């Protein structure tokens, strides 16, 4: 009867370890070690173009990125751009996702047909999305978007230089990112909506609550956790911004679409400066951890208040 005792109260040391081993080895080799390598390299002056080996630099890379009056402004500019991008995309995309999800949650014929179209951009690679929009954003009157604006404003709106005007470029990148990402969020919100018990709506209807009241008093509270999740995901996504910028604007015009990740990649591959790129990577991870922790704390507080 040792077998029974073993399976019920004993341990599965060997099986547990063997089953975890492949994943564990791969994660260690390709995630954990690279991350510690980034920390290590960030304390060195490592350059692909240099003949001599790495030199120990201590915190010099961090000083140059964060403090030095000549070399730090570009990093802060990039960080500001990420924050601005998040401030545009998070509320706009979440709001739109909720609106679309509510419209799709109605019991109407053919609703799945519309859902298909809203979700479709999600399966497009970001590199392709960026290129389609590059053409939509053409600056002269031949551009698609300018053509549409001209049509619907009866010629009042002059052609806009979507990607060439430093005041608009980041907004344009945000616009295409919302187009590409809102379907993903919408599906998550839709799943959240379907978790809300129908009885709550029925009770509200019987209490003669109108649509607006039902939306604010049943739907929004019911979606609370979903919305928090979606906000975290979109915020982190905003910090990772790279593909679109790389293809559409290369960080320009005059650094209007520089981002933290774009800085890191160009430091490494255009300047060959791996030390600086690694230091930016480490700062990037610290920011993401900080955001996650803050959002978790807010979440916990709300729970306690409840």
């Amino acid at each position: 009867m040792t077998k029974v005792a073993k399976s019920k109260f004993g341990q599965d040391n060997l099986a547990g370890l063997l089953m975890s081993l492949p994943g564990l080895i791969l994660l260690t080799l390709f995630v954990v070690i690279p991350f510690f390598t980034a920390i290590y390299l960030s304390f060195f002056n490592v350059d692909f173009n240099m003949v001599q080996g790495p030199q120990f630099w201590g915190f010099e890379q961090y000083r140059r990125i964060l403090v030095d009056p000549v070399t730090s402004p570009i990093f802060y500019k990039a960080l500001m751009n990420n924050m601005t991008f998040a401030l545009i995309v998070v509320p706009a995309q979440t709001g739109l996702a909720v609106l679309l999800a509510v419209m799709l949650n109605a019991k109407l014929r053919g609703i799945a047909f519309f859902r298909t179209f809203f979700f479709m951009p999600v399966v497009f690679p970001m590199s392709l999305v960026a290129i389609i929009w590059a053409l939509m954003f053409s600056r002269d009157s031949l551009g698609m978007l300018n053509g549409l604006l001209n049509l619907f404003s009866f010629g009042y709106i002059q052609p806009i230089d979507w990607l060439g005007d430093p005041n608009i470029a980041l907004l344009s990148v945000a616009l295409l990112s919302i187009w590409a990402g809102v379907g993903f969020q919408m599906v998550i919100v839709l799943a959240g909506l379907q978790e809300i018990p129908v009885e709550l709506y029925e009770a509200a209807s019987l209490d003669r609550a109108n649509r607006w009241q039902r939306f604010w008093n049943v739907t929004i509270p019911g979606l609370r956790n979903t919305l928090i999740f979606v906000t975290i995901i979109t915020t982190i996504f905003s910090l990772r911004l790279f593909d679109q910028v790389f293809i559409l604007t290369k960080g320009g015009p005059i650094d209007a679409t520089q981002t933290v990740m774009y800085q890191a990649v160009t430091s490494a591959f255009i300047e060959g400066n791996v030390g600086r790129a690694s230091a930016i990577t480490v700062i990037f991870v610290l920011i993401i951890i900080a955001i996650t922790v803050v959002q978790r704390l807010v979440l916990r507080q709300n729970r306690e208040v409840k």
Partner: protein
Amino acid sequence: MSASTLKVEKKEMLRRIRRNRSPKKIIRTSLHYLFLTVVTAIFFAPIAYMLIGSFKPTAEVLDGINGFALKNLSFNNYLQVFATFSDESMGFLWRFYANSILVSFVIVFGGLIVNSMIAYALARLRWKGRDAVQVLVILLVILPFEAIAIPLFFLLRDFRNTYFVQFLPFIASAFSIYLFYTFFIGLPLEIQESARLDGAGPWRVFRAIIIPMSKPVFASVTILSFLGAWSSFLFPLMMVDNPLYVPLPLEIQVFFTQPPTDWGPIFAFGVILVLPVLAVFLLFQRWFIQSVAASAIKG
């Protein structure tokens, strides 16, 4: 009055509320459809633009709203794409396809095996070091790939232009492990425990009980990791430039960087790039949408 009659009455009342076919209701439904149609048109416009443009001469693609006009359609852009990629120096289109399919296939199937096994060990087995591994996985879930892209390039730079450098780093995924883990935790324990009492070992339980019960989560992970693998851009950009090993999405740059930009062939290439994914999506869209929804149940 019994509870059931009450229920029936409530149902009847609700049915009347729902079945209400007053003019107000009809107007509201019409507006609902109108709104959905307008939004659908806005969402689909860029895709339609690409589809139509891929059959038009470049000069007529970039022509304001006439870009949507269905005239002068031909397969010339597609022929040009095939012609561009038809020698050793530029590479071959079928080869990019094959590269993308091979790399995505290994990432998806390798990932299903590796990630589901570790997730089962974490969710259902007791072993030394389990808690430490659990903490590690949770920490790694929030670490985006971008955070390790550069050191990974630095470490693997001697292995550029190979297949294995394109898939090996992506097989194990903390996010997939987390999806499997949350699903396995939710499975009923009774069958697993009685099987173990009957003498089945952990491998047997995993193979014969867990896997058959977990088709939804396997489908979710397949779809999500396939979408990621098929569109991966940053890492191949750093690691691959030999046309023999380049995956499909990277090659769109060939048309995009040669000025004056040749929009017709770019769009044709775009259609070639997205068509297989789009076809799979349209066939299995219920699964796609469910898997995205499932990815959020964590949180």
